[in-house]
């Protein structure tokens, strides 16, 4: 019977199948956050990704979690993810030692609007673990720095010991082709930087609002306050881009969990222009 004798799907054609990657490097960023560098199976390379996209990372027998890609787009053979322990799945992923295996599905979602940025001032605002998803965009901009206007980075975290990519942030501070302000919610005497919300740093950022594009990633409250402040400062709301977080379970628009109004955040997001989501952001429980 031809109707029952279907050929099995070709390898890799099933969107549910994770591909086993080997952990090559594991760097502790903070007490509960690590950065993993993953290698694709021998003879293959990770699929190309756009800054702002995410993968589903999987641990055998434990489960899957949606994690943003934090690596340098110019180094396509390395898949880099920064993971904070928030449950048993992320605990297992973050605990993966070099040589162990992490399954990967992806990349998924829309990325940052990289084509929109050349010729414009770029304001990057990251809150907490919002920095890793912005890192590929920052590295891409820095790789072709001359194509962009001013580059302003504001990075906020809970406390100084919660800052990730610390060495890289320090190196960025020393560059004269970007300005970075780091602020924390609270600090001890050993912190000589700013204490306060990222929005409090905006008045000190130098950019021409009308010719600025802004990239925002962090807790939703921070996104809302920052987008509002940027719009008030004169940045066009369609040039303010937010990376939204919802319950991404399947990452392929099938499971329904990440719906945000008409959007499946895993497909039409996670990056949205503020103008498109402002009404929903201001409404509760959408």
């Amino acid at each position: 019977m031809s109707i029952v004798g279907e050929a099995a799907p070709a390898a890799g054609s099933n969107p549910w199948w994770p591909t086993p990657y080997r952990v090559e490097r594991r760097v502790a960023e903070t007490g509960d956050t690590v950065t993993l560098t993953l290698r694709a199976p021998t003879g293959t390379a990770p699929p190309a990704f756009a800054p702002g996209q995410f993968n589903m990372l999987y641990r055998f027998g434990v489960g899957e979690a949606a994690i943003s890609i934090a690596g340098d787009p110019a180094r396509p053979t390395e898949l880099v993810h920064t993971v904070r322990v928030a449950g048993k799945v992320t605990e297992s992923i973050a605990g993966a030692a070099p040589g162990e295996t992490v399954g990967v599905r992806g990349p998924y979602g829309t990325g940052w609007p990289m084509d929109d940025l050349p010729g414009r001032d770029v304001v990057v605002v990251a809150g907490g673990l919002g920095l890793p998803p912005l890192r590929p965009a920052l590295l891409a901009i820095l790789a072709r720095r001359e194509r962009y206007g001013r580059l302003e980075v504001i990075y906020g975290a809970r406390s100084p010991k919660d800052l990730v990519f610390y060495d890289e942030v320090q190196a960025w501070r020393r560059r004269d082709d970007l300005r970075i302000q780091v602020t924390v919610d609270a600090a001890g005497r050993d912190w000589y930087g700013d204490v306060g919300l990222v929005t409090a740093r905006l008045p000190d950022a130098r950019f021409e609002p009308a010719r600025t594009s802004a990239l925002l990633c962090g807790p939703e409250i921070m996104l809302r306050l920052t987008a509002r402040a940027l719009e008030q400062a004169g940045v066009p709301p369609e040039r303010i881009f937010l990376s939204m977080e919802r319950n991404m379970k399947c990452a392929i628009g099938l499971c329904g969990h990440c719906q945000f109004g008409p959007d499946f955040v895993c497909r039409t997001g996670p990056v949205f222009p503020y103008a498109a989501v402002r009404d929903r952001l201001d409404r509760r429980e959408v």
Partner: protein
Amino acid sequence: MTATGSPPSDRPRLDDHPFFHGFEPEFLRRLEPAVSERTLDPDAILFREGTPARAFYLVRDGKIALELHSPGGPPLTIQTVGPREVIGWSWLVPPHRWRFDARALKATRLFAIEAGPLRAAIDAEPLQGLRLLRQLLPVLAERLEMARVQVLDVHRR
């Protein structure tokens, strides 16, 4: 204490600071005798919690950390205040005592306006006084919003 007072002959111009942009020159002249300049070295204490709030401070440059102390714990910086910003409202709200420590994180220059004459000026010129309160209110609102977000501890979620 390394904080030093400057003689009024320096004639610091209050309306150089954004907080006082747009005030009546008359009102600013009335305040002038109460205004002095302060310079702090890094780590210098501007004031301590519980002490009388004798002045309203406006940061011209540098950075001031506002610190809270709890018994048995290290001091915690809850906010930093930089150029073009102002420090506190304890000088206005009875019992006129500071609610936190203020410490310079780096070399910092401030305007200090004596609290007594400033309150008297507000009472004497209610319209200018209202303007001052209106300038101060957004500062309070921002601090409150920040405190709320800190309570939510959003980065932990």
